């Protein structure tokens, strides 16, 4: 269950408490997140919506350990990540987070197989084991016949599927998707969303997704709106429970 009231629930997979994030732009201080609370359980699929500059991507970056909050704390699977060193955070990301970006961000000189294999090169898996994992991930995203293709030889939808395979290949605790369909046509976007829903339903992955597209957001279990750094409303009124959204 997703909660935004900061009520105590130590069993949540992801807990954010009193998150603040400020940036300095010249002499101006920009308060992006202001005392944000969030609880996400295993298997939850949450969409974040809101206007540009509302802090969606910032929130994702904080939860993914790519950035540190100005105040507040984030705990993921009992690990308090807000005070980890850069190197510890890097190791933590490798174990727990799968990233999917709007622009796919595949390495153009590597094949689909090699791109998906990248996170596994950091593990102690043997070459054969790595191959098995990569083939499994590519099978899940339906691209076993494209293993030797380079990104330039794939469509946008296929590239994003390779990126998703890269995100899931090391079996992370949760996925962070930053506008995963933002660069795709409707048909490809639907395919990607089907795939992400399948990861949630069949594989029990928790997914936190930023999107501008209400159609895409509807595919999530819960949609949270961010406006000026504050969670202001739930998109599915029927899911609202006492102090939370189901």
């Amino acid at each position, binding site marked *: 269950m997703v909660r935004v009231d900061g009520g105590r629930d130590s069993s949540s997979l992801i807990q954010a408490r009193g998150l603040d994030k400020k940036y300095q732009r010249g002499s101006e201080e920009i308060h992006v997140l202001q005392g944000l609370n969030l609880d996400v359980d295993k298997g939850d699929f949450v969409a974040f919506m809101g206007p540009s500059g509302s802090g969606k991507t910032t929130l994702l*970056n904080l939860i*993914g350990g*790519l*950035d540190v909050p100005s105040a507040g704390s984030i705990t993921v699977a009992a690990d308090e990540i807000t005070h980890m060193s*850069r*190197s510890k955070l*890097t*190791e933590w*990301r*490798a*174990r727990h987070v799968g*990233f999917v*970006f709007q*622009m796919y*961000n595949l*390495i*153009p*000189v*590597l094949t689909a197989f*090699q791109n998906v294999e*990248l*996170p596994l*090169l*950091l593990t102690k898996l043997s*070459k054969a084991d790595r191959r098995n994992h990569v083939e499994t991930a590519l099978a899940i995203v339906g691209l076993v016949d494209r293993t030797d293709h380079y990104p330039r030889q794939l469509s946008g939808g296929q590239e994003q599927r390779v990126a998703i395979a*890269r995100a899931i290949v090391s079996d992370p605790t949760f996925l962070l998707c930053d506008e995963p369909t933002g660069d795709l046509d409707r048909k490809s976007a639907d395919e990607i969303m089907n795939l992400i829903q399948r990861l949630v339903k069949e594989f029990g992955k928790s997914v936190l997704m930023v999107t501008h597209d209400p159609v895409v957001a509807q595919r999530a279990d819960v949609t949270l709106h961010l406006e000026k750094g504050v969670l202001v409303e739930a998109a599915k009124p029927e899911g609202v429970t006492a102090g939370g959204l189901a």
Partner: protein
Amino acid sequence: MKFRGLIFANLFRKKIRFSLTIGSFAVALFLFGLLAVVRGAFSQGVEVAGADRLVVINRVSIIQPLPLSYRERILQLRGVKMITFANWFGGVYQDERNFFPQFAIDIENQRKVYPELTVPEDQWQTFVKDRQGAIVGAATAKRFGWKIGDRIPLKSSFLPGPWEFNLDGIYHGQRRQDDETQFWFQRNYLEERVPDRLKGQIGWYVLRVENPDDSVRIAKEVDELFANSPYETRTETEKAFAAGWVKQMGNIEFLILSIGGVVFFTLLLVTGNTMAIAVRERTAELAVLKAVGYSDRFVLLLVLAESLLIAILGGALGLGLAKLFTLGGDPTRGLLPFFYLPLKAIISGLGVALAVGVASGLLPAVGAMRLRVVDALRRV
């Protein structure tokens, strides 16, 4: 190494740029190789000089003669084992471009003082019996295609008349760096034909001492022996003599280091700029690597590895080409008799290439290491 694919894929992503950068290294290291060859050619005499040999020349200049009568007096000094002498002939073969050193030698002691330059015994004996005989180094014999039995005419630059010699033997150096360009003939033959005013005079003496530790003392004693005479001497170790000879031609070392320094500094700028561009255009990729768990240190090493690989590949190519070039022999027709690229220079060259590789890759690598994922992705 499991990251090999990643490193090589990055290296070859811009093939033209990769080739040009490798080419820059190759050209610079080729030049380095040639400079090392030239430096070696000038300083080789210093390096191969016998530790137990002293050279005695006229104190005024090497072109001034010394009396042959000094020989016996020098031999009597304590610690002098043997002595030989020679005259400079200064001849040319066919035309002025065919330069090589020719010496009128003392046939009794030449081989004792220079044991590293060997001649087959039968050839030597033929030479000793032949007044017009000559022994030539293998390099010069090869250069002119001379065979034993050939008749060799030389024209002296300061002695009258045509000079003809019979090639009786070919000498070889025991070490690779030994000089195999000399042409020896009997001093007696020279003595017969020089004008009276030059008779009984030699160009220089070379002594072998029993103990190299006594060299300084013996040199001093030789010079004191002939002090205040019409022919005062200057005695020094063969190494010092060779070094002085090189110095007379100018500060070759400084010249070569200056040229090399400029070349490598330029290479550093070119490669550094290339690596900076290569890193800048991969900002998003490096950010993604970091996002999925690659450490800052790994990214630093990744960029450095690419830079080092370029340096090694380009350096090896350039030095290989320089080595190939030297295999063709001295292109200056005898001005650089020691024309080869020694292993030491190849190793130094690779060391310099690696240093430039590290230096040029360091700034971009540190930049990549410090890259913040959030900032990098925002820029894309």
